[in-house]
């Protein structure tokens, strides 16, 4: 004799879940309304699409020689900024982890300062440094150092938190100082991850530094701002394509390096 057990009743969704979903839906409608959400211009302006696509098929190749220098500046900004950001980050990350910083208030203060630091977007740093050291790629570099530093510090500090305790105990047991502890037990353990964060930051810096030109911080963005305001679609297409090639090449190189590091 077999009695087929009835299917168990599905528990009812708690009213709290519905309430939260309603709040989220309400906020979404409010957000959409506040920015006048509509999609009609992209359907109405078929001629703009055609013109843009055409510009990308036939970019102005003769304009290319004039963007070699801005592209080089963008690359330089990214490279120098990524290097210095990584250098500062590995030092400061030691202050922002309980593993390496055992003075409670220093640790708490640095976490707090870094959270505020990270909440500033790169373009805000760029505007700040343009105001302080004048417009040009130098301001852009300083801005990207400040911004990338925040990212690398956070990732590195989290890696330090998760470091293997064994070597730490060994250094403590042999009477090592705090500095020796960081040097011998922490740095070798986090180095592969840290290098990969630094490279990742380099990739994002190349992408982010496109915007720098818009606030006067040099690089290829300056040319892009001028050409797109003037409506020279063929030149804009050339700049965009060249920038994309640079970004993709650097992404690929960095990906290869990171894969090699993680072996």
């Amino acid at each position, binding site marked *: 004799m077999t009695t087929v057990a009835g299917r168990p009743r599905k528990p009812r969704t708690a009213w709290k879940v519905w309430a939260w979903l309603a709040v989220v839906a309400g*906020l*979404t409608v409010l*957000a*959409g309304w*506040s*920015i*006048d*959400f509509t999609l009609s*211009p*992209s359907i109405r*302006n078929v001629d*703009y699409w055609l013109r*843009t696509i055409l510009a990308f098929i036939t970019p102005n190749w003769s304009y290319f020689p004039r963007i070699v220098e801005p592209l*080089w*500046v963008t*690359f*330089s*900004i990214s*490279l*120098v900024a990524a290097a210095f950001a990584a250098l500062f980050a590995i030092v400061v990350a030691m202050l922002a*982890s*309980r593993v390496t910083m055992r003075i409670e208030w220093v640790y708490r203060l640095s976490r707090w300062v870094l*959270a*505020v630091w990270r*909440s*500033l*977007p*790169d*373009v*805000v740093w760029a*505007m700040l440094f343009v*105001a*302080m*050291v*004048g417009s*040009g*790629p*130098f301001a*852009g*570099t*300083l801005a990207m150092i400040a911004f990338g530093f925040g990212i690398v510090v956070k990732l590195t500090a*989290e890696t330090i*938190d998760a470091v293997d305790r064994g070597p730490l105990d060994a250094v403590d047991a042999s009477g090592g100082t705090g500095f020796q502890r960081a040097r011998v037990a922490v740095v070798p353990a986090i180095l592969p991850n840290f290098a990969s964060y630094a490279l990742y930051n380099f990739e994002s810096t190349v*992408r*982010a530094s*496109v*915007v720098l030109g*818009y*606030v006067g911080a*040099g690089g290829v*963005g300056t040319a892009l*701002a001028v050409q*797109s305001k003037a409506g020279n679609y063929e030149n*804009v297409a050339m700049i*965009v394509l060249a*920038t*994309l090639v640079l*970004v*993709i090449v650097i*992404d690929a190189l960095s990906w290869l390096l990171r894969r090699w590091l993680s072996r």
Partner: protein
Amino acid sequence: MTAAGLVRPRRPRRRWLLAIEVAVVVLLVVAMWGIAPNWERLAQAPESLVRYGWLMISGLFHNPFEAPWSAHWLAAIGQMLASVAMAWIGTLIAAALSLPLAFLAASNVAPRWVVIPLRQVLNLLRSIPDVLFAIVIFMPLYGLGPLAGALALGIGSVGSLGKLSYEVIEGMAPQTIEAVRATGARPFQVVRWGVLPQVMPEIVAFWLYRFEINIRAGAILGAIGAGGIGSLLKSHFQDRNWDQIGIGLAVVVIITVIVDSISAATRHRIIAGGRVRPDPVAQLS
């Protein structure tokens, strides 16, 4: 035992590693030249930082409920909320577009001839900066304003959300899929009942994480004309209104930190579930 037996072995050294290191250093030095460092201005920077910093902070110490200052605070908060709205709508667009694409790009769900080309498209999308979508496509079509920014963030986030999501789908336990398939389910039903319930928590967590990123990206788009706090700050920087810049930055920091912590708490709740489960990393932060 002789002392020679205790000699520390020489550290192996690969010659090409040295070559790479030298190349990087040379490239760095050349690049330093390219950015035209202005050491004089840098030396003056601490001084101007103190001067401008003081001006910015003094903006914060005026009574925020008095005549001109209340308007400055309200303007900054309003523009920042517009940036948050822009990031939210952008993230939703990206979520809606990336979810189906992620299933089509997961090798345990879709056939190879779909997976491989789609991944190339996602990779390409991921390497295009949001700013370029805004400048080339959406600002000419939608004019200056947060809507163009929201759409640019939406398209710009599809690449990374798609990648993160298909990695989650590929990392899921295969038994569930087998079980659903064994009941004779069609491919769509396998996705609906086998894959979706298992991967959604992690994917939603990634959406929220992207939302946090997009709030910052929204401010960037503002500076190129997409409205919101970025536009406000840019005009204040042009006019050197340091006290209003101070107010604007304070609003950016406060609202970003608040939205980040709400979003992070929600992510944690989605992943770890309702029970209080101590998370070692979260406790440290």
